[in-house]
């Protein structure tokens, strides 16, 4: 499948199945559009065997192309086609989709649990309006995870990860620092069982910053592979959506702490992470604000909320948001050019060393490789399903008992979603988020249309930035 688009002065052609990306001039851009039409009714290449692929000879297609590219010289058309034909024969243009045959075998493989999200606190000292956890309580009562439950969860992870060495444990909430003593105890316990079990834990912590102090920061810098600091951007935006329970803002309290945290980690292995809503459709200004505060690892992401919420992203907001991503991409390129580059999570893409096709097709791992643990020890497919009775998978005493649900998540992939099959971004987003799909369509194999539109735009911007910085 070919996808071509123009962005920031670049003509970009993506060959979806091979992962190839070409930056082309105007004549090739127009030629590929014509060839794409041609390929719908005629063979653009012949495949004698796997290593013997021939593009349709120029003489056979000359009339078709010269008719459609009449503004170009015939000699230029011939020269350009020679380059295009080379890429076709190199299998980096107009390649076939062969993944459907492989994905069935891959999804039937035996999986191991690689990561746990520990809901260490179903309680919070903020009252964020968009919190999918309902002010941190997740459809239930306020609760803190005990050391005993957390210990059983780590033991379960060690057992269910089988021969895998590297394991990830996220401390999540609610606000995890409302149960910091247990966080410390669990990290200490995890470290104590690493050697005997040939495991290596990578711990991460997400916090709203209200309780962050020097002792906690020193601990986090020693033990946490990643630290996620929640801040939405400009003060008025942040305080509107992230008030304290008494209604006062939280921005002034957390910003100095977050600046100190980022600096103390050498501007690495952390994210300041914000949410944009219908209230700040100019969210590029919030990213700029965070960059100007000195943060170098930034993520600002669209809210996922019921359509009835006044802050929910609406379909009519999408064009404005896409424009914002364009503005942001140019801004980030300018910063980079002036030696003050920052990373934006959703524009980070590894074209040459990214994951294999299997990983790209099968997605995030929720429900089989990744589980969330509620404070009482119940297991769920991921943090967004916690507290939903239909998604209870077992508990830390029994392990996963709802194997039918696990298998349903295992089979959730790009080819289980009709809408994804013909999407150019399928190997970058891997079919999207199961929780978002469920929340908007009632089916983990559904698709969340607004999320898809924004994801496609982000992929286009990220690739444009790669084109702009390619040597």
């Amino acid at each position, binding site marked *: 499948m070919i996808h071509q688009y123009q962005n920031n002065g670049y003509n970009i052609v993506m060959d979806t199945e091979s992962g190839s990306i*070409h930056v082309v001039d105007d004549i090739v851009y127009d030629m590929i559009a014509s060839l794409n039409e041609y390929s719908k009714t005629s063979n653009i290449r012949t495949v004698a065997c796997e290593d013997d692929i021939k593009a349709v000879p120029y003489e056979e297609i000359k009339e078709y192309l010269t008719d459609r590219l009449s503004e170009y010289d015939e000699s230029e058309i011939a020269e350009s086609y020679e380059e295009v034909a080379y890429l076709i024969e190199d299998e980096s243009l107009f390649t076939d989709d062969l993944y459907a045959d492989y994905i069935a075998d891959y999804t039937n493989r035996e999986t191991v649990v690689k990561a746990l999200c520990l809901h260490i606190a179903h309680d919070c000292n903020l009252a964020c309006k968009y919190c999918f956890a309902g002010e941190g309580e997740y459809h239930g009562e306020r609760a803190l995870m005990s050391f005993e439950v957390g210990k059983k969860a780590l033991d379960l992870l060690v057992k269910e990860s089988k021969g895998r060495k590297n394991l990830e444990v996220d401390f999540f909430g609610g606000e995890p620092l409302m149960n910091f003593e247990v966080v410390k105890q669990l990290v200490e316990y995890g470290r104590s069982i690493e050697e005997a079990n040939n495991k290596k834990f990578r711990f991460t912590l997400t916090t709203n910053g209200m309780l962050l102090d020097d002792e906690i920061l020193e601990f986090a810098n020693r033990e946490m592979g990643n630290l996620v600091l929640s801040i939405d951007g400009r003060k008025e935006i942040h305080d509107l959506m992230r008030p304290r329970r008494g209604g006062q803002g939280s921005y002034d309290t957390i910003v100095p702490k977050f600046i100190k945290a980022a600096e103390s980690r050498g501007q690495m292995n952390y994210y300041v992470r914000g949410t944009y809503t219908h209230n700040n459709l100019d969210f590029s200004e919030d990213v700029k604000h965070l960059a100007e505060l000195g943060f170098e690892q930034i993520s600002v992401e669209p809210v996922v909320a019921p359509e009835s919420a006044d802050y929910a992203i609406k379909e009519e907001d999408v064009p404005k948001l896409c424009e914002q991503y364009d503005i942001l991409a140019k801004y980030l390129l300018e910063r980079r050019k002036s030696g003050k580059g920052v990373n934006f999570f959703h524009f980070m893409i590894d074209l040459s*060393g*990214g994951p*294999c*096709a299997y990983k790209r097709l099968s997605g995030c791992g*929720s429900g089989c*490789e990744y589980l969330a643990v509620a404070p009482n020890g119940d297991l769920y497919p991921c943090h967004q399903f916690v507290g939903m009775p239909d998604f209870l998978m077992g508990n830390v005493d029994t392990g996963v008992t709802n194997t039918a649900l696990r298998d349903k998540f295992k089979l959730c992939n790009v080819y289980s979603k009709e809408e994804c099959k013909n999407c150019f971004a399928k190997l970058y987003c*891997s079919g999207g988020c199961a929780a978002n799909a469920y929340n908007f369509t009632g089916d983990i194999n559904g698709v969340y249309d607004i999320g898809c539109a924004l994801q496609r735009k982000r992929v286009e911007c*990220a690739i444009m930035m790669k*084109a702009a910085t390619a040597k």
Partner: protein
Amino acid sequence: MKHIKSLKTRNLKKSIKGCGECQTSCVGNQSCE
């Protein structure tokens, strides 16, 4: 090439020929190595 500049990308079709060592994600910016 005069008309085309190809970015350096991983050949995904060759990658079909799955170790499962990669971490979970919440995929595009992940790095295999």
